[in-house]
């Protein structure tokens, strides 16, 4: 998918290749072409240093085609990477747990009902708030198959701040204080008028 200026992707559901995170033991192809496994990141760095691995090294990781919800628009088309959250099924949970997801009682899992016309998905899903990924526009396979609405995206944004441990409290307090001072100043100005 190209970063087409003017097209709204914020809240769009798309299918894309997402690579798994490299994790130990690490499988890499050496400078000689032979595949080797390294038990930890330090051993990989040592192999880069001694020339056994290229700099930068190429990690062998699988990628899966999966649905994502994009969190950003790129109106200028200058940034080809999109922040996105992965969609997950939750069929392995027991019945009570599944119902809690549907009822919105599991805040790290934002429920998307089975609604193909709306979300473009054949099954019910949940947005995993702990699955933030960056996906390159060229790894996106489809144009948007569905959309979350503005309110849903706003909820995702607030929850994402929480699950990224971003403290919005100081900004909120500053905004309240600023508004309060403006109200007091306006009252004082009215009282001082003859």
């Amino acid at each position, binding site marked *: 998918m190209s970063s087409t200026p003017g097209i709204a992707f914020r809240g769009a559901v798309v299918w894309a290749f997402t690579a798994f995170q490299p994790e130990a033991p690490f499988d890499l192809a050496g400078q000689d072409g032979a595949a080797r496994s390294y038990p930890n990141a330090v051993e990989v760095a040592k192999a880069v240093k001694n020339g056994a691995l290229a700099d930068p090294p190429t990690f062998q990781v699988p990628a899966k085609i999966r649905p994502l919800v994009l969190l950003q628009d790129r109106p200028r088309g200058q940034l080809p990477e999109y922040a996105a959250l992965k969609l997950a099924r939750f069929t*392995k949970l027991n019945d009570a747990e599944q119902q809690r997801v549907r009822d919105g009682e599991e805040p*790290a*899992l934002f429920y998307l009902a089975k609604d193909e016309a709306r979300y473009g998905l054949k099954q019910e899903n949940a947005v*995993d708030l702990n699955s933030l990924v960056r996906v390159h526009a060229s790894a*996106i396979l*489809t144009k948007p198959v569905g959309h979350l609405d503005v309110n849903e995206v706003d909820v995702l944004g607030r929850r994402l701040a929480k699950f990224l441990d971003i403290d919005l409290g100081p900004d909120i307090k500053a905004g309240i204080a600023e508004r309060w001072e403006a109200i007091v100043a306006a009252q004082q100005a009215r009282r001082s008028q003859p």
Partner: protein
Amino acid sequence: MNTRSVTANEVRLPDMAEGEAVIVERYGKPYAAVIGAEEFKLFQRLLAMFGERQPSELSLSDAELAVHRSSEAGEDVEAFDFALLETHPA
């Protein structure tokens, strides 16, 4: 606070009245406390308002963790319909 869920048949709980907290003592000193589910929700809300900011990982339930783990492993993910390459090309 990290929370861990166990099923009711894994533990023996004392009979509790609504709004009551049961303090379990060991050697004459408080060792643990058992409170009702509603009181625990209130406690969590108070903790969120007045307590120190906690890493969000501590708030994750067993269900949330289970879904996240299976999703990250590429399991329990809706299967791609390759017809979308024709009907919704990027």
